């Protein structure tokens, strides 16, 4: 039996673009787009549940040691946090504009907006670095000793020296910073991954692969970026604004 | 790198901790050990559910077996006898009846559990403490200062409560004949209560003692299966003689002290220290002492770390006593002992008399 292999092709809207060949098992480009979108939303659901576990841990220990979380939150600079929030919100807007530009086959504008989004991600990570450095300096998260373990005899945790004594008087002061580090680092990892995905899409855009007839990857990466933003919107008040 | 299925560490070579404990009698229907507490609802609900299960099992298997024979496909083109895909009365019955049955089971079980988790006042005034650690049990009594190791005495027909604490990982306190089980969680206090009863006729002349199994029922590492204790149900009079606190008096003959020391060794020390030289979590006690020409015990020399710096010391009573109460003070400077941590024993768990007994036992191993 022959492979009745007629591929559906979406023509390019202009000379700077290339046509898109629909994958062989789909009948129409719409079917391909809807499948990709449904699949991606399901993937985003798994990300939400992954972070959900972290939020559950946060709420549990906030309930158990409220003073620790209030005191810990005071050690964070809410202004830097707010700045990061604005940066991400703005980058979500530039991302949405990038998707719109791809949808309307505007190659240059797509590249510009995507580039601005990556810039936003970079600024976010720089501010994050500044925050982490501050924690490091105050002995609240000493990164050099992060993996050096817990001394059972002395009760000393290698990375939490708190030499300024800001967490004295609250139970298990390290707990806030451990959870803060875990949640923001995993979120930061997703920011970096998102930026990487956007750069990948920028390459594809430069080659003319994305246009009104086929912009699914831009759309889906955009969704990913919005999720990364959304998670931060929840992280920020819980960690920074509690006091 | 490939160190799976190695032979280290060795298992204790001695008879198991349950050696000599008679197995419990089994109840009439054969599935449960004879009940020794008042939690009859457990047995009642267990057998009720069992009966229901057997009923449905017989029903299902019966219908299938009949169908396998009567409705067998005999020729390749034989169609089904009937193509029915619904039968509303049947569907309603087989939904509603099981629903009613399971709701009965739920309610009965819930009531029974409330009973088991609500400690009556009588038990609260008779509170013991059970301390679980890898891999043994220590029991503290309400009105007696000396704890017992690996066994506990309770008075028949008197409600008792146990506070449960763990000094390291998860364990569980499980006495099958009492039908009680509760996880022992480090960092938390839990409690469990029951009223122990005798289940056997009293035979013989001695005091009436019925010994039951206590198992650890939450996996806790290497010797989880050896973390056993004996529950002795006794009469009040016998209990009042504090049978667990029968440490030889100071003027007792030496062999009694050695024997008592050996008994304590088997309860508290054997999981980490061998006596025949084989390696364990802790160093072997073989060769600690030797006998000189006059038959006097002389301690050998060994390398230890004092504050991290190596030092050669001579084994003596003071060193052994210090190592029990403060194991980090002088650690044996050998792998893997230098990396392992010994549990700290406090004087209220192992008092000076008991330390002397352990030392006497160690000396009795001298070559």
């Amino acid at each position, binding site marked *: *039996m022959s492979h009745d292999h007629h591929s559906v092709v979406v023509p390019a809207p202009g000379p700077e673009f290339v046509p898109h060949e629909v994958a062989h*098992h789909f009948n129409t480009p719409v*079917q391909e787009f809807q499948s*990709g979108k449904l*699949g991606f939303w399901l993937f985003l*659901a*798994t990300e939400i549940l*992954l972070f*959900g*576990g972290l939020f559950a*841990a946060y709420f549990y220990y906030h309930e158990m040691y409220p003073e620790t979380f209030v005191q810990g939150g005071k050690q964070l600079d809410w202004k830097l946090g707010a700045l990061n929030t604005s940066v991400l919100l703005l980058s979500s807007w530039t991302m949405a504009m990038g998707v719109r530009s791809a949808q309307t086959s505007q190659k240059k504008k797509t590249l510009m907006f995507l580039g601005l989004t990556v810039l936003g991600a970079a600024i976010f990570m720089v501010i994050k670095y500044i925050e982490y450095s501050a924690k490091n300096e105050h002995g609240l998260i000493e990164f050099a000793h992060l993996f050096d373990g*817990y001394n059972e005899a002395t009760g000393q*945790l290698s990375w939490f020296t708190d030499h300024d004594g800001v967490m004295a008087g609250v*139970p*298990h002061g*390290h*707990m806030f910073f*451990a959870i803060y580090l875990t949640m923001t680092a995993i979120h930061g990892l997703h920011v970096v991954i998102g930026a990487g995905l956007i750069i990948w899409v920028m390459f594809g855009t430069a080659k003319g692969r994305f246009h009104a007839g086929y912009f699914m990857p831009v759309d889906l990466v955009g969704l990913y970026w919005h999720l990364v933003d959304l998670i931060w919107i929840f992280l920020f008040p819980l960690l920074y604004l509690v006091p | *790198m490939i160190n*799976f299925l190695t032979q280290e*560490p060795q298992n204790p070579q001695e008879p*198991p901790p349950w050696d000599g404990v008679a197995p419990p009698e089994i109840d009439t229907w*054969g*599935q449960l050990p004879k009940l020794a507490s008042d*939690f009859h609802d*457990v047995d009642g609900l*267990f057998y009720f559910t069992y009966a*229901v*299960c057997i009923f449905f*099992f017989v029903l299902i298997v019966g219908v*299938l077996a009949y*169908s*396998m024979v009567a*409705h067998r496909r005999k020729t390749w083109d034989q169609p089904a006898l*009937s*193509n*029915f*895909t619904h039968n509303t009365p049947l569907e309603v019955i087989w939904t509603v009846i*099981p629903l009613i049955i399971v709701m009965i*089971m*739920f309610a009965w*079980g819930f009531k*029974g559990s409330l009973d088991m988790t609500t400690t009556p006042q009588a038990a609260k005034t008779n509170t013991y403490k059970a301390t679980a650690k890898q891999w043994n049990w220590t029991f503290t009594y309400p009105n007696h200062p000396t704890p017992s190791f690996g066994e506990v005495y309770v008075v028949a027909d008197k409600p008792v409560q146990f506070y449960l604490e763990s000094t390291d990982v*998860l364990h*569980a306190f*499980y006495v*099958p004949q009492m039908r*009680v089980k*509760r996880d022992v*969680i*480090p*960092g*938390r206090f839990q409690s469990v209560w029951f009223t122990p009863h005798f289940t056997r006729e009293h035979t013989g002349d001695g005091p009436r003692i019925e010994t039951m*199994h206590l198992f650890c*029922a939450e*996996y806790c*590492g*290497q010797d*989880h299966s*050896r973390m056993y204790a004996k529950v002795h149900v006794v009469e009040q009079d016998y209990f009042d003689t504090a049978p667990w606190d029968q440490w030889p008096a100071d003027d007792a003959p030496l062999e009694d002290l050695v024997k008592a020391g050996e008994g304590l060794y088997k309860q508290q020390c054997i999981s980490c220290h061998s006596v025949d030289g084989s390696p364990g979590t802790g160093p072997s006690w073989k060769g600690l002492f030797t006998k000189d020409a006059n038959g006097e015990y002389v301690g050998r020399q060994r390398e230890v770390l004092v504050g991290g710096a190596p030092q050669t010391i001579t084994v003596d009573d003071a060193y052994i006593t210090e190592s029990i109460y403060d194991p980090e003070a002088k650690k044996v400077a050998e792998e893997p002992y230098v990396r392992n941590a010994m549990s700290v024993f406090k004087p209220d768990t192992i008092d000076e008399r008991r330390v002397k007994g352990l030392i006497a036992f160690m000396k009795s191993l001298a070559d």
Partner: protein
Amino acid sequence: MTTQTPVIDAPTTPQAPREDYLNCSKGFMSWAGTLDHKRIGLMYLVGVGIAFLCGGLFALLVRLHLWEPEGMLFSNVDYNKIFTLHGAFMVFLFVIPAIPGSIGNMVLPLMVGAKDVALPRLNLLSFYLWLSGAVLATLAIIMGGFDTGWTFYAPYSIYTDQAVVTIGLAIFILGFSSIFTGLNFIVTVHKLRAPGMTWFRLPLFVWALYATSILQVLATPVLGITVLLVAFERLYNIGIFDPRLGGDPVLFEHFFWFYSHPAVYIMVLPAFGIVSELVSVHSRKPLFGYKLIAFSSLAIAIISFLVWGHHMFTSGQSTYAMFAFSFLTFFVAIPTAIKEFSWVATVWKGSVALNSPMLYTLAFLVIFAIGGLTGVILGALNVDLHLHDTYFVVAHFHYVMMGSIALAFFAGLHHWWPKMFGKMYNEALAKVACLIIFVGFNLTFLPQFIMGSRGMPRRYASYVPEYAPYHQASTIGALILGAGVALMVFYLVSSLFTGKKAKENQWGGVTLDWHTATPPVHLNFDEEPKVIHEVYDYSTLDMESLQRDAT
């Protein structure tokens, strides 16, 4: 249900090999880089098959060691490692991925009338993630193994000086393999159904895989974050599960079981799907209560998220928690019971063919009755306080996981084997193996109920001597079971080399998978099927071609 596509009428001469998905391309890369769901399904089959045999080997070692009360073969530490490996391998490398990955991949697109799954590259990625997880798990063994039990309870899993981070990473990766498979199946069922294939014309295996996929997507991430948190605890002492640092070990249990209870339904729902298909085909009768069975799968999926606490009744829960978890546990028994009764009603007054797939299916129905009913016994709060962490629980879950799920997997293998390979195995040997497996299985696990209710705790390297007769009976049963499985592997594998050519429609099935060539061509269907009949409508069976096949 039939299609307007003619049944493949094989115009070629009997000797000329037709082009099918197995021979249409050759070479290592045509398999390693394949996007064909059928080839991916076969690769999964080989992988999970090997994992199953490894897990079974560990099980035999466990049972042999327990022949004697003091333990016959290993030191305590080594025994603890072996039972842990048995659990970890079986759960994460076999029971969770096997049916969706192998049979599901092979059959789901065929059943909905599609050319492939919706996201073929993701499908291949799922397989490589499984393989990576398997490699890491093997690495963990080489690094010395781990003895925490497959449940990795804290704080022991945090303190113990073993390869916990490695196996944790393996499980994280395996989790994503599972998530992506589920994701793929959901999109396939939503978007790639052939014209006329409405939701209520879908075969019940598809419904079962759909419900499973929802669980895979929603529950598995929680396992992912849990193993990650344990790894972080070990790496930099967060403290959330470590009581020395203010953490709560019971929080770990909540996190773990929030996934692992739905996980058992991820394991069993596909098995239910296979049973639904097989009782219909081999009774040549439509499923009794199709919609009930379909909806009960969804109901089970949803309720399964609400009962995780029944694994923790002895941890000192509040009265409210105990009430809710016990109540819902009994509740989830009802849709399961409805399924069991519906299957029995499907067989009743059918045209019951006692071939090997059906024998495995009937064995399932008997064994699952016991497994499910003993779960009800464990749902009662006060009874559970006595039975928790004893061999009664071990027997219960082996009745469901081994006796039911594995047996359904075997049944499905036997049923779709001719379709997948175009070859038939030795039917007489298959019947013998089924009997040996049935006897061996029951002899292994029935005594465990008895000693469990009599107090024998689980995860014990040595035990009180009064349980010895039960342990010994169980060990003999395990050896018999092992022999049966070995026989099964033997005749299945040899059928690939010396088996008779299978019939085009070996069993007289009417779902779309039986409307493909045997074995199917690369793109499954020559023309897109158009569905005009209801599912399980055996009046559409092409009796002439069946007769041709029979002679």
